[in-house]
C-alpha cells in the first residue's frame, strides 16, 4: 500500500514529490509520458511572475508571491538556472496607464516588493529597444526567468534519490475506491494508496471523473511561441509584458536563461489539447510582439512551439481536497502563474497530507543536486574535468557546446533520459540554432550504445516518434 500516489509529473507533481520525499511516506508518481515535464511544463513563458496579476485575497495571489520568494534558494540548491531580471508591463494609451495603476495597487496588496511605476523616459532608459509609443510601465524587479523543465527534473530527481518511485509511460486509466483507500489502475498494474494528489495538468478533470469527483471546468487555451537565436538574446534585458487582457497576460518578449529570446504567447481557445502551431497564431504573436519591441528580428527564429493552459472561468487555482471524494487532493486549474507558485503549492499540499497521515522527517534525506555544465566552467575547471573524464573533451552539440561527458552523466542520473528530447531537456544538446541537425544522430548513437537498444528503436520523444525506418540496402546486404 502506498501512502500517496501523485498523478502527473509536471512541475506541480514534481514539486509535491520533492516536498513529500522529506518525510517517511511511501510515494509513487505515475506519469503518462515518456519523461517528466513533458506537458504544459515544457511549453510556457518560463517566467517567475512577481505577483501583481492575481486578485488580492485569492490563494493564487498568496501562492504566487510565496513561490516567487522561494525561487533563489530552491534553484541554488538544485543547481538550475534562475535569473531575477525584473519585468516591465508597458502601457501604450492613457487607458493602459490606468491599468498599470490598478496592477500596482493589486501588487502592493499582494505583498509584491519594490514595485515602481515608471515614466516613458525611465522605461526607455532601462529598455532602449521598447517602442517609442510607450507611455509608461510598471516595473517589478522581483520577476525572473527560469528553465521550467530543469526545475521539474531537478525536483523529481531529488525525490527519486530519496526513495520516491517514479513510473514513466504509465497513464492512469481508472481509479477505484473502497474501504477508505484507492486503487489506481494503469495498463501495467493496480496500485493501492491512501491518498491521491491529482497533478495531471490539463487532464486533471479526467482524473477527477475517474475518482468519482465532479470534474472541474477546463478550457484548453493554446499559446504559441517563437524562440529566437542567441544573436537576439539581449534585445531586451528584462521581461517585457503588455497590459493583460481578457485572455491572459498578453504577448511578452523576454530573455531566456539559456541566452535566447522568447516571444509569445497568444491565447486561443481550442476543443482538444492540440499543441500544433498555426500560421494564424504565429502571425498574431509576431505582430503583437513587434508592437512592444519593433526592432525584433523574427527571421532569427530557431523554433516554434505551443503550450496549453488549463483555463477556467474562475480567478483562482482549483486546489484542495475533493468535497465528494475524501482523500483525493486536486491540484487542478493550475493556469499561469502555476510554475511560479509550484513550490508554494507543494508546501500547502504537504500540509494537507499532514492532516491525514503522520509526517515524520526522514533522517537520511539528502537535498540538493550538482551538475557539470561544461561551457560554464573556467579554463582551469575544464582542464580538470577532462583530466578526470576525457569524454568531457568531446563536444557533441556544437551550437550549445555540450559534451559527451555531460550526456553520460545524465544517463547515470536518477531519472535517465531515454529519448533524444529527454537528453535535450537535461543537457541542452539540440536546443541551439541547428536544432539537433548535427548532434541528433550522435545523441542517438550514444543512447543506443548506453541503453543497449538498436538505433531504429530510439525515439525523438513519446512512443511512436521513431526517427529511422530501417537500414539502407547496402547495410541490409552486410
Amino acid at each position, binding site marked *: 500500500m502506498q501512502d500517496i500516489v501523485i498523478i502527473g509529473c509536471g512541475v506541480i507533481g514534481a514539486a509535491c514529490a520533492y516536498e513529500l520525499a522529506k518525510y517517511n511516506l511511501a510515494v509513487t508518481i505515475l506519469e503518462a509520458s515518456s519523461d517528466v515535464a513533458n506537458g504544459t511544463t515544457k511549453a510556457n513563458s518560463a517566467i517567475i511572475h512577481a505577483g501583481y496579476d492575481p486578485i488580492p485575497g485569492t490563494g493564487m495571489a498568496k501562492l504566487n508571491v510565496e513561490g516567487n520568494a522561494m525561487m533563489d534558494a530552491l534553484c541554488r540548491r538544485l543547481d538550475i538556472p534562475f535569473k531575477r531580471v525584473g519585468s516591465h508591463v508597458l502601457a501604450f494609451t492613457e487607458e493602459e496607464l490606468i491599468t498599470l495603476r490598478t496592477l500596482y495597487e493589486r501588487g502592493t496588496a499582494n505583498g509584491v516588493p519594490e514595485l515602481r511605476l515608471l515614466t516613458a523616459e525611465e522605461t526607455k532608459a532601462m529598455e532602449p529597444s521598447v517602442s517609442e509609443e510607450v507611455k509608461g510601465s510598471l516595473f517589478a524587479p522581483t520577476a525572473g526567468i527560469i528553465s521550467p523543465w530543469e526545475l521539474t527534473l531537478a525536483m523529481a530527481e531529488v525525490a527519486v534519490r530519496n526513495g520516491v518511485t517514479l513510473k514513466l509511460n504509465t497513464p492512469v486509466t481508472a481509479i477505484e475506491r473502497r474501504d477508505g483507500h484507492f486503487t489506481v489502475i494503469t495498463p501495467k498494474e493496480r496500485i493501492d494508496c491512501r491518498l491521491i494528489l491529482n497533478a495531471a495538468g490539463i487532464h486533471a478533470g479526467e482524473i477527477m471523473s475517474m475518482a468519482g469527483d465532479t470534474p472541474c471546468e477546463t478550457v484548453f487555451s493554446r499559446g504559441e511561441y*517563437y524562440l529566437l537565436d542567441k544573436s537576439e538574446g539581449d534585445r531586451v534585458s528584462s521581461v517585457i509584458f503588455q497590459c493583460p487582457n481578457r485572455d491572459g497576460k498578453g504577448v511578452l518578449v523576454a530573455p531566456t536563461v539559456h541566452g535566447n529570446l522568447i516571444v509569445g504567447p497568444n491565447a486561443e481557445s481550442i476543443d482538444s489539447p492540440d499543441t500544433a*502551431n*498555426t500560421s494564424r497564431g504565429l502571425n498574431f504573436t509576431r505582430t503583437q510582439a513587434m508592437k512592444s519591441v519593433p526592432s525584433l528580428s523574427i527571421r532569427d*527564429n530557431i523554433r516554434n512551439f505551443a503550450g496549453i493552459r488549463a483555463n477556467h472561468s474562475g480567478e483562482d487555482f482549483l486546489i484542495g481536497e475533493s468535497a465528494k471524494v475524501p482523500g483525493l487532493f486536486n491540484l487542478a486549474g493550475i493556469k499561469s502563474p502555476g510554475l511560479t507558485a509550484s513550490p508554494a503549492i507543494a508546501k500547502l499540499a504537504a500540509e494537507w497530507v499532514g492532516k491525514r497521515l503522520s509526517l515524520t522527517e526522514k533522517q537520511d534525506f539528502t537535498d540538493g543536486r550538482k551538475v557539470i555544465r561544461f561551457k560554464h566552467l573556467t579554463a582551469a575547471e575544464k582542464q580538470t574535468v577532462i583530466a578526470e573524464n576525457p569524454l568531457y573533451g568531446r563536444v557533441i552539440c*556544437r551550437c550549445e557546446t555540450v559534451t559527451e561527458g555531460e550526456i553520460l552523466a545524465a544517463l547515470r542520473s536518477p531519472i535517465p533520459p531515454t529519448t533524444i528530447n529527454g537528453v535535450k531537456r537535461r543537457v541542452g544538446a539540440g536546443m541551439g540554432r541547428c536544432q539537433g541537425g548535427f548532434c541528433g544522430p550522435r545523441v542517438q548513437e550514444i543512447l543506443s550504445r548506453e541503453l543497449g537498444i538498436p538505433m531504429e528503436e530510439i525515439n525523438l520523444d513519446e512512443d511512436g516518434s521513431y526517427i529511422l525506418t530501417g537500414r539502407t540496402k547496402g547495410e541490409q546486404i552486410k
Partner: protein
Amino acid sequence: MKAQLAIIGGGPAGLAAAIAAHEAGVRDILILERDRECGGILNQCIHNGFGLHYFGEELTGPEYAGRFIDMLKDTSVRVLSDTMALDLTPERVIHTVNTAEGYMQIEAGAVILAMGCRERTRGAISIPGTRAAGIFTAGAAQRYVNIEGYMVGKRVVVLGSGDIGLIMSRRLTLEGAEVLACVELMPYSSGLTRNIVQCLEDFGIPLYLSHTVTDIRGKNRVEGVTVSRVDENRRPIPGTEMIFDCDTLLLSVGLIPENELSKQAGIILDPRTNGPEVYENMECSIPGIFACGNVVQVHDLVDFVSEEAQLAGRSAAEFLQKGSKPAGRLITLTGGSDVSYTLPQKIRFDAMPDRIKLSFRVRRSFGESKIILRAGDAILASFKRSHMAPGEMERVTLPKKLLNEVSGNEIILEVKEA
C-alpha cells in the same frame, strides 16, 4: 601550444589552404578538425560530380577529399582531429578542446577560417504544424543514409530545391523510398540545372515551383503535409492546398556560413553573405586572419572552394613571411539591384596582383545577359552570359590595369538582360 599557421576546419577549404601554405614555405601548420576525419561535408557526398574543374575528371566527394588528404601526407602539416575550436580572440588565440589534450589555447601567427556552413532549419522558416519526428534537414538525412546506413523514411516530401535536397531525392528513391514531391517557394530552383534533370526529372519526381509547406500533421511521427501555392509576395494562396500523405519531410532551405568564431573574434561580417568581409587576398577585417570556402560564401562547386582556399593559404604564408599589406588606396566592390552579393568586398589596390577573381550571385534567373563592372559612369568591363541563375555562383576576372584608369574607389557589378 603555438603554431605558425592554424587552420580551423579540415574540409576541402582547410585542406587546400594547408597545402598551398605549405607549398609557399610555411612549415608549422596545424589543422583543427572537430570530426574524426578530415574531408568535411564531402565525406557524406558519395555521388559523382566533384573535381571536373579542378582535376578534370569526375570524382565522388570522398575521392575528392582523399586526393587532398593524400597530398598532406608528404608535408609537415599536423592534423588535430576530434578537436573543436570553441573560441577565437582578435590576438589569434584559439581555444580548443579534445579528449586527448583537454582544453588548450593555441597561439597562432596566422589563422585561416574554414568552418564551412550549416543548414537552415524548420525554425528559420517557421513552418506551422506539429513537432513530430520525421522532419530532417537534407544534410542530416544524407549523413544518416550515406554514413550511418539508415533510412529516414518511406514516403517523403522535400521542401526546397537546393542541391542537397535534389541529391537526396534521388538517393532516397534509389534506396526504395517514394519521393512524392519537391516543393520550392521561389518561381525558380536554387539548385544546379544538372541536378534538377538527373535527380528529379529522371525519376519522375514532380517539382512544384512557387509552392510551400503550410502545415505538418502527425502527433508522434509525421503523417502528412499540406502544400500550398504562393503569390508573388510568397504568401500562401488559400484554396490551393494539396495534401500529401507522407512520413517524412526533408528540408533543403538554404545554408548559412558558420561564423560563431568569427563573431567572437570581432571580425566584420557581410550581412549579404553572412560570412566575413574579405580583401582581395581573403584576409578578414582583423589582420592575419583569413577565410575561405563555405564560411565565406556558400559554394555549389567544391572546385572553386579549393581555388579560393589556395589563395587564402598563399596569402597567410605571405603574411607570416612579409607582414601586413600596406593600406593605400582602398576600393570597395558592391552589387547592383539584381545581385545578391559580391566578393571580395574590399580591394587594396597597392597589394592587388595583376588580376583577381570576383564572385557573385544573381537574385533571379537571367537568359542572354551582360555582367557590367562600373566605376561611377565609366564602364570598366562587360561579360556576356547566355544564362544565369541564383543557384549558380558566377565568377569574372578583374585585371588590375582597368583600375589604373579610374579615379573613384567604388566599383559596382551589375547584371542586365542583353
